[in-house]
């Protein structure tokens, strides 16, 4: 938007004010979280930590409260993202490179798949897991979560793959390279940014997912952090602001780190471009 018209200055002031006010609404709750986590007597006011302390962190960082659930979260999110990526790459390659009769109906099927509400499957999935003896199994949960994230992942992956130039592959084909080795040696290395985007997308979704593990996992030992934080802070009415804040921060670190790393080499906004192309 060009802001050089006569009314430009006024417009600029208004837009700045709006942006700053909304920005504060977003930052202040997070600031409270940060401040409260270092406060020994944290309460619901935004103030500098009176006794500055890391007690909240040390008391939260115990095997049963933090390490166990966080490890479960890592296993679930990582497993889910890896399985999704491998299957999505395999499916996206023929969809992107070969003109097959099933391409179009398949892509519509994928779109339809992304529309299906996961909640509508939870009752039969629960019963399926009971009959397959997969209830309370982390790997069963990982498989199910991977399946639910697949349609979106294939959609994004195909669009990323479409933007990888085909010339190099043609060279490989004429040199007698097979489809599989063309895929693993040429296409996959070329679309690393796209792979990273899909990986992060699936990982972050799995990391924050509450409903699926809440239904499919039972024992506290298997719970990811998203459920254990609810069971510890949400259910028992333990009003321990400092500890909640500390736990939330620790819990968010892996995802934040992923975001920082990817936005470095992907430039933030373009990260989701693969989802909207087409």
């Amino acid at each position, binding site marked *: 938007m060009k802001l050089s018209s006569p009314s430009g200055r006024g417009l600029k002031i208004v837009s700045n004010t709006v942006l700053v006010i909304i920005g504060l609404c*977003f930052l202040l709750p997070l600031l409270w979280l940060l401040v409260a986590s270092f406060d020994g007597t944290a309460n*619901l006011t935004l103030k500098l930590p009176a006794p500055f302390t890391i007690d909240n962190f040390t008391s939260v960082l115990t095997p049963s409260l933090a390490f166990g659930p966080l490890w479960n979260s890592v296993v679930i999110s990582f497993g889910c993202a890896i399985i999704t990526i491998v299957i999505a790459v395999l499916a996206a390659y023929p969809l992107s490179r070969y003109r097959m009769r099933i391409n179009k109906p*398949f892509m519509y099927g994928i779109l339809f798949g992304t529309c299906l*509400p996961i909640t509508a*499957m939870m009752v*039969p999935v629960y019963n399926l897991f009971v009959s397959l003896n997969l209830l309370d199994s982390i790997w069963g949960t990982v498989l199910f979560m991977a399946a639910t994230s697949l349609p979106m992942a294939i959609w994004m992956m195909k669009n990323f793959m479409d933007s990888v130039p085909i010339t190099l592959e043609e060279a490989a084909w004429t040199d007698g390279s097979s489809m599989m080795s063309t895929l693993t040696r040429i296409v996959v290395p070329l679309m690393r940014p796209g792979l990273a985007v899909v990986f992060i997308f699936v990982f972050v979704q799995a990391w924050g997912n509450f*409903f699926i593990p809440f239904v499919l996992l039972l024992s506290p030992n298997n719970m990811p952090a998203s459920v254990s*934080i609810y069971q510890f802070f*949400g259910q028992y009415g333990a009003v321990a602001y400092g500890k909640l804040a500390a736990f939330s921060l620790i819990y968010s670190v892996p995802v934040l780190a992923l975001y920082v790393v990817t936005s470095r080499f992907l430039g933030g906004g373009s990260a989701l471009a693969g989802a909207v192309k087409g």
Partner: protein
Amino acid sequence: MSAATETRVSASRESTRLIARRPGARRAIRREAVFGYLMIGLAVAFVTVFTLIPILVSLGLSFFSWDVITPPQFVGIKNFTRLFSDGQVLSSFGVTIVLAIGIVVLQIALGLLLAVLVNTRKHKWTKALFRTTFYLPLLASTAAVSIFMGYLFDAKFGLINYYLNEIGLPSVPWLVNPTTAQITMILIVVWQQVGFTFVLFVAGLTSVPTDVLEAAAIDGAGAWRTLFRIKIPLISPTILFATVVAMINAMQLFDQPFIMTKGGPGTATTTATIAMYQTGFQNLQFGYASAIAILLLVIILIITGIQFLAARKLVFYQ
């Protein structure tokens, strides 16, 4: 698909023809085709086992009465007739639709406003700062956000009412009064999720071709006109995508109301998913819960269909 994809596909056909001149290449091509189907088949099998079959089972179960302990009993459409006379379940669908519309409208409008405002920033670091600010809540887990937002919005001891009182305003019954509870729920969900639409819109706005914008500027179009006549039409496919995704997610709202209010006060924030959860996993009426799930599925499909139909008139593809 875009035109670029089409050329690429034809290029790949070109090259297949090139290979076909080699002796024995025809067999190789057939083998590769089979391989290609297998690669797709893996994904299809996976999705079928874990999502399509459960949905079909769900459809089947909705005609049975089942408490897990005794074998399922066929009851015909009794679950559905009960559903349409069950005030509580019907109200949960009403709540879901009200919340979903509120969430989607606010999320799209705010996401677009923020994207347009941030996109006009000239400095790279202010752009990055705002982008991170609006994106951060999305990275936090819904469960964590719900718990601490529940604390912040607590009517008696919450941070927000405390500061409202400090500046001389009366306390607001955020999550205590049915109407304000719904509004608060919408605000909190949008607070957390607007980053997604925001990032999509920023990406869309950045990819608006500059020659079009220059042409508009030369023709004397002002800021508003450029925005409404050029930028928004050009990113309308992105807006459609964001709306559809946001709507599907909002219709399944569970985490925030379940954690913050347990569906209360009364049933003001009991969404269809919460009703389904309570019916199935707490009252062990799995058949009836399946019927609720199927109704939700049908409503979501109808709403998505309506959005795509409306898009035919409203969305502009280059």
